[in-house]
């Protein structure tokens, strides 16, 4: 099998954030995560580029991304005290959007740290 290699990929599974992992992949699956530990290897190998889940669900029904985004916006906008929470397993770029969201909503903002 002809695998492509991404050198010096960064693993975000734990707080070590090792940035020296070589990922061997076929475009759909990562087959090998060189230098990653057991936890990192499991993290890389368990995610694929397959479409395993619906793009979006509203009240359990499959909907388009546009509908889901509009529904989310409407629900959050209507709330008097919305909460924005989590942000552990996501990028800084998304985290900045989350802070902007809480600011825009006049809501609460909290991460895993508070647990």
């Amino acid at each position, binding site marked *: 099998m002809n695998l492509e290699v991404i050198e010096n*990929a*960064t693993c975000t599974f734990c707080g070590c954030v090792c940035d020296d992992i070589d990922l061997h*992949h076929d475009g759909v699956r990562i087959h090998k995560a060189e230098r990653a530990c057991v936890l990192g290897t499991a993290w890389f190998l368990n995610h694929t580029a397959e479409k395993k889940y619906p793009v979006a669900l509203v009240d359990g029904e499959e909907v388009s991304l546009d509908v889901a985004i509009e529904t989310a916006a409407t629900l959050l906008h209507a709330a008097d*005290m919305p*909460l924005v929470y989590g*942000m*552990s397993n996501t990028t800084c770029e998304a985290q900045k*959007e989350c802070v902007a969201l809480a600011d825009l909503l006049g809501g609460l903002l909290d991460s895993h740290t*508070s647990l």
Partner: protein
Amino acid sequence: MGGKVTCTLGEVKQRADFIIYWGGNPAECHPRHFTKYTIMQKSKFLPRGRKDRTMVLVDIRETKSAKAADIFLQVRPGKDFELITILRALIKDQPVRDEDIAETGLDRAAVEDLVRRMKGAKFGCMFFGMGLSMTRGKHMNSAALLTLAAEMNAFTKFVAMPMRGHGNVTGADVIMRWQTGYPFGISFNRGYPRYNPGEFSTVDVLVRGDCDAAFIIGADPGATMPQPAIDHLARIPTIVLDPHITHTSRLARVHITTAPQGISAPGTAYRMDELPMPLSPALKSPYPTDEEVVRRINEAIAKKPFWLPDGGPSPHQWTSQVNL
């Protein structure tokens, strides 16, 4: 009182001849911590690597990490705060009774040996894990260790650092600090950031039933939080962004599948010592990134009526009294 004395992990790699892990199990939870950053590395200052370093593990049970330790100290569950407080007293040559030390599960000889070694170190570093920060006493346990590290600088160089888990939780911390002034537990209800853990922190908010909608990203509180908190999430409109259908997704009104960070979403993540690392995703996801989805939600909300009735007061207006 207060504050934090710390360093980046490269300083530990280069200089730390004395390392304490407290309430953490790096061998199983941060497997490359020993080899990449701490005890196994050789450096200009510690040319013999492991042989030039002493490692102490303090925990309530003998985990796999104990095998890597030179000294394992088994503290009685729930006695970390007492033990650290005793150490704070002993480094200042304050008397502590044998039976009070024994209450922590350790004897005087072991504790005095630890103090001697701490003071004898050239560069000491304490890492603390969730075994310390998530047990009874919580933030005060972390504060105790940070204070001990700060006070040790009266004798020698000492630093302390939390063993952050959960991928990029450090990034959230760092970004919230520069954008809002506070690391977590923030409310924008009054149009500007306010901070009060316990009042605005998620578990407390949910258990009290204080919020009327929730947006959850990069976390699965439905699997980890106490039942009353989960019950409230099910009662209110909850929106979840996650690469998987999670426990929280199942009780949510809206679930949006997103690309996992670092695997198929690009961007940045912060290491536990607050250094940012660029991500190099290998795969192309059929799903949008978190960043894109949240930005689009923000754009959709921005089109709706603004929540401050008249655009809010002038930026130069000082708020009355205090901002809490």
